[in-house]
């Protein structure tokens, strides 16, 4: 068991700089926690909450707590918001040390309440409830709490703290100790305030009361941290007095309190830098070793009962590897509200494992593999329309913490990007170099999901697809091994990753060769009259195909509104900073129909991509989306699209540009093989049946399908996304690299059965077929 150590600094108001310096020193020395007392009636002391806010801004890692807050002078509803706020600002470092209050005359002189001991305990009990309820922003209902002391009448919950803020109470008497056992996460007591002569006895009796009350409330005593505030002097000679002697004696004095009396956090009460240093350097390491040897890891703190009560069936929560435990989120955690849903989907996963390194990806994957019957998703940005990245009762590996973007080679324009980065951040990182990498049309989308499927963005006609720029990918395979893939290293796997990557593993790093982009680009947003919808679509399609490659355009049409003209939103980006060239490129598009609104600006690609909020996802339900790639917007295609839209088959119809550089690429080069289309159509619908009915007649016109916009996972869809020769090769590769079908959650490619029957595996580098075009060849 790993002990934790903190400091307790006197927040003297006469020398604030000194107080802060001690807190900063504590962090530098490696203490886990810095604490300060709270006596708001004492002018000799700085206000504790204010001081903690200040210290938060001067530190980065150390946790912060009052030891303990004066509840009578700090109403719990505002306190709840304050604590959540500081936890957000300080990135998850707040602990709530709370006290019932003791110096009633002083409290009264400040205008505060007077409470009997019983009332004080009651108030503390109610405050704990109010804190936890208001922090639980995942519950929508506002809080109505009618207590004996406090009333909260319809307060909104939130903001959601950065982490589950533990609540510990300062206590010495049985009533408070029982309250700790029932409701709190920790007990803070000052050794020197226990009755002299039998301090350890008092500590034991206190522990027993806490433990008994905990068990009675259905809790495990190991959920409750025992925090001991101690003080002493470092002397050269050993002596009989507690903590009056050399560091070795301190270790002897403190170890039994941890080993026998369950203290897991020691807080050193000292305002002397030298003492803090000696303790950190000469007591802590020895104490950790002694206690670590004596106590097994099973005596580590347990997650609270209220959290464990919400666990889902079949998940080995207590076997989550140690490295992943702090970042793991389970349904009872406050952070669950933040991670359960994705952009398009409501979810209720059993556990979300946040990973920040290859080793953690491997460990998380190994954990997921121990649950072959549960859904398993991998999440980069959580923007998937087809990509599920959440589920019900299953496991999610969250890559958002792996988001580095670094330039590997300035001359070759080679960039290494991790899967959890978002495309707007990539655009911003590349901008100073004069570069851009086409992605999609929304900056909040994560790199991993898009770059393993395609990537149809605002520079598509000039740059191709995102995957066309991939030069290498490092991937963790189903068996946990990390391999580097490229044209020369595991080229078959590299082929598969670009278009079907989700089926083969978790890519932990991509290397892209990016292109230069004009320092300023033209960005147009038109709202156009689409009352002649079929004609509009045809003319737009023709104009885009005829446009120079510097122009890429996209159009969006919503559901028709009764009594209002049908409009289309047309977006176009021109990679040029020359206003005349921009106008020349845009004019043919602007000419296709009357304009209701237009906005054409000179901006940067990074600014165009900075169109996403940084808020947590809040999707609900399941999206319904269809996708298809066409060569041209022919009159028939236009007519069928018109019928789809005018008959309310879709609430969101979009056409994105392919063509241009997209079709320069050899269809055999990668698993995404559709290199003859000029447009990808996609539509989202409220009703699958309705959307499908109007989509079906378009099917024969499709030369392919873009996976990321398709939610129908039937084999028919997979067969269009991956034409037969491609699919066959993918299935063989799947049998080789993921025979147990670990990565099964998106457009699952079933492993080829032939491998399982022992047939000879094809040579990895043997090409499949020759260069003829694959797939349907219609329209």
């Amino acid at each position, binding site marked *: 068991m790993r002990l934790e150590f903190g400091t307790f600094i006197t927040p003297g108001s006469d020398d604030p700089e000194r107080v802060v310096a001690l807190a900063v020193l504590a962090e530098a020395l490696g203490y886990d926690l810095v604490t300060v007392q709270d006596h708001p009636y004492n002018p000799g002391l700085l206000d504790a909450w204010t*001081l903690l806010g200040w210290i938060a801004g001067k530190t980065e890692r150390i946790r912060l707590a009052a030891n303990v807050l004066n509840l009578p002078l700090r109403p719990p509803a*505002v306190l709840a918001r304050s604590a959540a*706020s500081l936890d957000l600002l300080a990135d998850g470092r707040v602990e709530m040390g709370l006290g019932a209050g003791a110096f009633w005359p002083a409290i009264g002189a400040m205008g505060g309440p007077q409470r009997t001991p019983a009332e004080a305990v009651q108030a503390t009990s109610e405050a704990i409830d109010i804190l936890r309820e208001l922090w639980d922003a995942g519950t929508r209902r506002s809080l109505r709490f009618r207590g004996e002391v406090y009333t*909260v009448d319809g307060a909104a919950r939130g903001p959601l703290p950065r982490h589950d803020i533990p609540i510990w109470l300062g206590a010495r008497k049985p009533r408070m100790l029982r309250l700790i056992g029932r409701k709190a996460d920790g007990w803070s007591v000052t050794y020197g305030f226990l009755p002299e002569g039998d301090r350890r006895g008092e500590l034991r009796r206190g522990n027993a009361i806490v433990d008994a009350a905990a068990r009675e409330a259905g809790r495990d005593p190991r959920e409750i941290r025992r925090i001991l505030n101690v003080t002493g002097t470092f002397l050269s000679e050993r002596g009989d007095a507690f903590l009056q002697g050399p560091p070795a004696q301190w270790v002897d004095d403190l170890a039994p309190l941890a080993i026998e009396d369950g203290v897991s956090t020691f807080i050193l009460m000292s305002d002397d830098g030298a003492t803090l240093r000696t303790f950190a350097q000469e007591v802590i390491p020895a104490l950790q070793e002694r206690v670590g040897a004596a106590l097994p890891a099973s005596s580590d703190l347990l997650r609270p009962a209220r959290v464990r009560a919400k666990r889902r069936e079949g998940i080995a929560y207590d076997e989550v590897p140690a490295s992943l435990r702090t970042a793991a989120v389970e349904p009872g955690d406050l952070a669950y509200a933040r991670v359960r849903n994705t952009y398009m989907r409501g979810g209720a996963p059993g556990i979300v494992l946040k990973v920040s390194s290859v080793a953690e990806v491997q460990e998380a994957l190994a954990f997921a593999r121990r649950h072959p019957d549960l859904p398993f998703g991998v999440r980069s940005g959580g923007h998937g329309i087809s990509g599920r990245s959440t589920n019900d009762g299953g496991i999610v590996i969250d890559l958002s913490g792996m988001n580095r973007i670094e330039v590997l080679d300035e001359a070759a324009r080679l960039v290494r990007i991790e899967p959890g980065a978002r495309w707007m951040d990539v655009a911003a990182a590349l901008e100073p170099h004069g570069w851009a990498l086409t992605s999609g049309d929304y900056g909040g989308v994560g790199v991993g999901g898009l770059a393993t499927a395609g990537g149809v963005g605002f520079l598509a006609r000039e740059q191709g697809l995102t995957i066309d720029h991939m030069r290498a990918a490092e991937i963790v395979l189903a068996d946990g091994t990390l391999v580097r893939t490229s044209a020369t290293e595991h080229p078959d796997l590299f082929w598969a990753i670009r278009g079907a990557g989700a089926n083969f593993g978790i890519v932990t790093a991509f290397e892209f060769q990016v292109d230069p982009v004009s320092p300023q680009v033209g960005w147009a947003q038109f709202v156009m009259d689409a009352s002649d919808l079929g004609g509009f679509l045809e003319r737009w399609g023709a104009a885009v195909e005829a446009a120079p490659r510097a122009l890429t355009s996209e159009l969006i049409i919503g559901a028709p509104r009764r009594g209002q003209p049908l409009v289309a939103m047309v977006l176009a980006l021109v990679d040029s900073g020359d206003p005349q060239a921009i106008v020349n490129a845009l004019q043919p598009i602007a000419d296709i129909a009357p304009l209701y609104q237009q906005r054409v600006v000179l901006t940067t690609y990074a600014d165009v991509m900075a169109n996403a909020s*940084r808020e947590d996802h809040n999707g609900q339900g399941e999206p319904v989306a269809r996708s298809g790639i066409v060569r041209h917007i022919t009159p028939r295609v236009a007519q069928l699209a018109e019928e789809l839209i005018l008959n309310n088959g879709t609430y969101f119809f979009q056409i994105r540009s392919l063509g241009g550089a997209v079709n320069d690429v050899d269809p055999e080069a990668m698993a995404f093989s559709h290199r003859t289309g000029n447009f990808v159509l996609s539509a989202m619908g409220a009703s699958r049946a309705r959307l499908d009915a109007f989509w079906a007649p378009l099917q024969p016109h499709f030369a392919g399908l873009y996976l990321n916009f398709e939610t129908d996972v039937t084999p028919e869809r997979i067969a269009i996304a991956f034409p037969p020769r491609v699919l066959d090769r993918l299935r063989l590769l799947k049998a080789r690299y993921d025979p147990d079908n670990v990565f099964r959650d998106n457009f699952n490619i079933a492993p080829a059965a032939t491998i399982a029957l022992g047939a000879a595996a094809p040579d990895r580098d043997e090409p499949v077929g020759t260069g003829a075009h694959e797939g349907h060849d219609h329209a």
Partner: protein
Amino acid sequence: MPDYEHDLRFGIFATPTAQPPQHAVELAVLADQLGLELATFQDHPYQASFLDTWTLLAYVASRTERIHVAGNVLNLPLRDPAVLARAAASLDRLSGGRVELGLGAGAFWDGIAAMGGRRLSPGEAVRALDEGIDVIRQLWDTTQRGGVKVEGDFYRVVGAKRGPAPAHEIGIWIGAYKPKMLDLVGRKATGWLPSLGYLPGGVADLEAMNARIDAAAVAAGRAPGDIRRMLNVNGQVSPSREGYLQGPPEAWAEDLAQTALDYGISDFILAADDPALVEFFATAIVPATRELVAERRS
């Protein structure tokens, strides 16, 4: 046409959104780096999507170096004045004298009551603010003997120890529009902080309100110049002038300078959540405004 001859100060008023948590902080840091004098945030403790303003102020103060921080304005019904006074003095000492106290009597009573605060009528709220200011001033004033003694209808603080003294004279700014509040400003505040958006007649409304404040100040034995006249503004930068603070930087500077000279407004606090706007304000508009005012004053 009063000009109280106060030095000009400029600041921002950013939304204290909880997501992303560092949004408001980054704007304040930027403002600090650009040399603006004030970083302020609204205070609505019942608003669950905002950060707690006092907590934010403490954190922002520790992340900045010169800029002064203030609530704009703090919700007194949900913040005990004695505790607040000591908290403000604490932060002022920690920050080397960079705290100002913008105070509000409260307005959204449903929200206040929802959080367990007491519901007051508008008239009661003014009186409570009045008493609250007394509590705060007494607590800061360590030159007086004896404890704080405010036996009011809304606050009873008797015997609380005074101190610690703030590191500088913390301004007490009040937003006010109606007669009783304007009188309170004249009697007890060191800054008047209305918002342009709540002036139906625009800046022209400032004249009569200034006069009322002046009269109340004089009646209380103070000088009108004891009270800074401040203004929360909002606007848009556009190629041509379309209205007050709707135009190019030169037009903004002209508008602000004229408001400074016509109505004695010395502190302009711009509502801004976009770093680009903050940058533009600080580099293009503020210097031009200062120049115009300096020219025309001389």
